[in-house]
Each structure stands twice: as structure tokens, then as C-alpha cells.
């Protein structure tokens, strides 16, 4: 395990510099006017960032309101008996609800849980596994689809949520299997 990890650590540290130098270098070898082409491409960065602003505002303000209204606590209480049936501890429910909605919110939850249960607790392991194995679904949708002005998302939301819900459940069982 450690060798795999060491390799991956090195890989992730070296990949970025290799690309930063490698792309222009290879371009120069192939006689590309690298500076001109780079600037041409980089121009788009600003345009794309501005394009996604309306999508991000729409998604984030709704999520912000939802969090501030205290609905999250209510949902946690509502889900407690349901998820208890399939063996998911109530302690990790907030993580499951917040994770697809906000990244900073889920970081806060992991931190809260560490201070409440301690780093070694099985609940923290479950929550951290949930955090590590999924993404902020709604943010990703806003950014990726917003950048190309896609408003009709078809089955992207249900598919993403199915994968998220599955990951939340799987995280509990995988952690129980490995550490329980």
C-alpha cells in the first residue's frame, strides 16, 4: 500500500510541473508560436468564468437559504429512522445531506465531527470517506454546464444523486468492513 501511495504522491507532485514545461516545450519543437497561441487560449479563461456566474449564483443562493433556514436539522431527524433501517448511524446523516450541496459546509461537518468524536472515531472515518469519494454535485453541474450555457440538464441530476446516495451508503459499509 505504501509503495502505491508513494508512487501516486510523486506522480501528483510531478505531473503539474511536467505539463507546465512539457506542453510549451513540445510546442516549440513542433514550431508552434507558443506565446501567441497561449495568449489566444488564455483569453477564454475570463469569458468562461463570467459565463458561469449566473449559474453559480442560482445554485449557491438556494443552497445558502436552505442551510440558513434550519431545514437541514429537520431532514436529519426525518431521515434518522429511515436510514437506521439499513444500518447507517444517525451521526453521519448531516454529511450525507450536505456533501452534494456545499463543499465548505461538508468541510465544516468533518471538522465538527473530529472535535466531537475524535479523529479515530469510526463516524469520522465514515464521514471522511464520504467526503473523499464524492463531489459537490450541484456546484459541478453549475460550473461545467454553465460554462457552455447548458440549462436543460436531462438525467445529469438524478444520475449524479444516485451515485452520491450510493456512495454515502457504501462509505458506511466499506468503513465498517475495513475498520469495524
Amino acid at each position, binding site marked *: 500500500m505504501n509503495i502505491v501511495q508513494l508512487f501516486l504522491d510523486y506522480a501528483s507532485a510531478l505531473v503539474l510541473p511536467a505539463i507546465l514545461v512539457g506542453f510549451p516545450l513540445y510546442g516549440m519543437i513542433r514550431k508552434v508560436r507558443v506565446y501567441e497561441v497561449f495568449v489566444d487560449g488564455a483569453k477564454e479563461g475570463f469569458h468562461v468564468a463570467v459565463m458561469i456566474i449566473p449559474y453559480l449564483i442560482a445554485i449557491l443562493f438556494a443552497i445558502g437559504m436552505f442551510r440558513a433556514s434550519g431545514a437541514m436539522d429537520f431532514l436529519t431527524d426525518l431521515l434518522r429512522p429511515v436510514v437506521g433501517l439499513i444500518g447507517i448511524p444517525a451521526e453521519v446523516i448531516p454529511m450525507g445531506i450536505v456533501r452534494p450541496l456545499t463543499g465548505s459546509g461538508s468541510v465544516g461537518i468533518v471538522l465538527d465531527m473530529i472535535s466531537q468524536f475524535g479523529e479515530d472515531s469510526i463516524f469520522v472515518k465514515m464521514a471522511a470517506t464520504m467526503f473523499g*469519494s464524492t463531489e459537490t454535485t450541484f456546484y459541478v453541474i453549475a460550473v461545467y454546464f454553465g460554462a457552455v450555457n447548458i440549462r436543460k440538464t436531462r438525467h445529469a441530476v438524478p444520475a449524479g444523486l444516485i451515485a452520491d446516495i450510493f456512495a454515502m451508503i457504501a462509505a458506511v459499509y466499506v468503513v465498517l468492513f475495513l475498520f469495524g
Partner: protein
Amino acid sequence: MLNYIWGGLIVLSLVFALTSDITDFVQDTYRNGTPLPVTIIFEEEYHADTRRQYVEVQLSGTDLAAHYGDSTMTGNTWPGVLLQTSAGRELRFAEEASLTEPLQTICQETGQEDCRGALQGIPAGTEWQTAITFRPVRWVKMNAIAGAALDFARTAVTLALGLIGGLGLWMGLLKIAEASGMLQALVRFTQPLIRPLFPKVPKDHPALGLIVLNLSANMLGMGNAATPLGIKAMQELQTLNETEDTATDPMVMLLTMNTASVQILPPVTLVAIMGLQINQLFFSILITTGLSLIVGITAVKLLGRLKRYREVTS
């Protein structure tokens, strides 16, 4: 579906905020207008003609419990200031004072600059038994959701503008990769692996290479690089789109692979929080993310066949 979720989030927040505020109103959670017994201890002794005096504010547990109807509350002493004006005497809690609930909420809601309440009676000696009346507290949650909506709208802009640098850098590099033929080489090399998932993308299309780069960046936990690469891949896919605003099958697949996240290395944020503990979670994250990716891909393939989600063709 996003329309329903989005609308649902907004309507639900209003419903919950309203319920919570009405409950507060009915139960009189904040005891609006009712004086709370308090003991004020002067540092030396009371001066009748000093405008500001630093004092200690003592609230007893039994008084608090009786006042707010919560038997678990305990008393404490907090630093404060006694203000004397022509209008009367006011007590102001020091800004750094961390009060117990519901006092904390009362302070947040009423104090424009800090937390204060009107005092009854006339002080004497070094200890003064009196009672404090806070300004009435209403619509706590309604104010909170309105504030949050504005806050998060601003956050959205900050987030988007924060992406400009990374986006610009990657878009520039990718343009070089395209011009030098690197991207095309990557496409030829990796398309046997990736094309089965994106059958509608034509052979040798640059989108395939960008998808590979986006997924690789995700796997290595490089979120900062993954986003620009994914956006660029989406732009390439959009050139194949016959409609203007409807996602195509390959777009939905790419998006789901990103939201399900394909990580071999844990994300940087999690490493920062968990420290060395993360080593233990290496396998649990790998297994979970792998399984959820398979489920996500299957869901995309199956849901795509449903009538309501079928691709629009012009």
C-alpha cells in the same frame, strides 16, 4: 429535475424559516419585553456621574432557567459596560463575551453594533441587583435566509472570478497542446479505453483527449486542474451539440463521472483536515469512489433510455 430541486430548496427554506419563527413567537422563546434578573458587580464602586463604567455581569443559573424555561441552563459571569445616558441606564455585553443561548441569538439579532439592554432601578454600592430588558427579537430565521441568499450570491461571484487565473492558464496550455498535435496524439492513444463510454463522440475527436486529461486530473486529486480541463472538454462536446441549451449524452456522462468523482488520491482539502489519519482511509475512499463511479455510469446509461430523458434530436 434541477428546476424542481432548485424551486424546492427555496420554497422549503421559506417554509422552515416561517415555521421556526412562528414557533418562536408562540412560545415566546426570547421573552420579548420581559425583564431578566441580573446582578451587576462594579470594579470598585458605582459612580453616578460616569458615562461608561466597566462591570461584571452575573446571571444566575436558576434565574436563567426560570426566565427561558430551560432547566439545563447554567449561570455565568460576563464582562460588560454600564452606559448612563439621559434616556436611562443600559448594559452592554463586551463584544468578546461568548454568551449562552438564547442570549447569543438575542445579541446577534438586536445589537446593531453590540449587545445591550435597558436596566431598571437605581444602582448603589458595589453589587446591584436589577433586571435587564433586551430589545424584542423577531423573525430570526426570516432574516437569516434573506441574509444567506445575499451572502451566497456574493460568494458565487467570488468563486467564479477566482477561477479566472486557473482557467486562463489551462486554456492557454491546452491551445498549445492542440496546435502542436499533442492532444490528437493523446486521443489516438487513449480512445480505445474511453470511447466505449462516449460512443456518440466521433473517432479522433479532441474532446476525447480532454476528457482523459480531466479524469486523470481528478484521479490524482488535482481539483484545480480538473475543473478547467473539464470545462474545455464540455466546450468541445458543445461543438457536437445540435441544440443550444440541452445536455447531450456524452455531456451527462462526463458530468456524472466528475460528480461521482474518480479519485485515486484523496482530495487536497481532506488531506489538510485529516492529516496523517488520511493514510488509513486511502483504501476505503478508493473502494467507495470506484463503486459509486460504476453505479453513476450505469445510472447514466439506464436513465438515458427513459423516454423523458431521451436525447433531443433536431
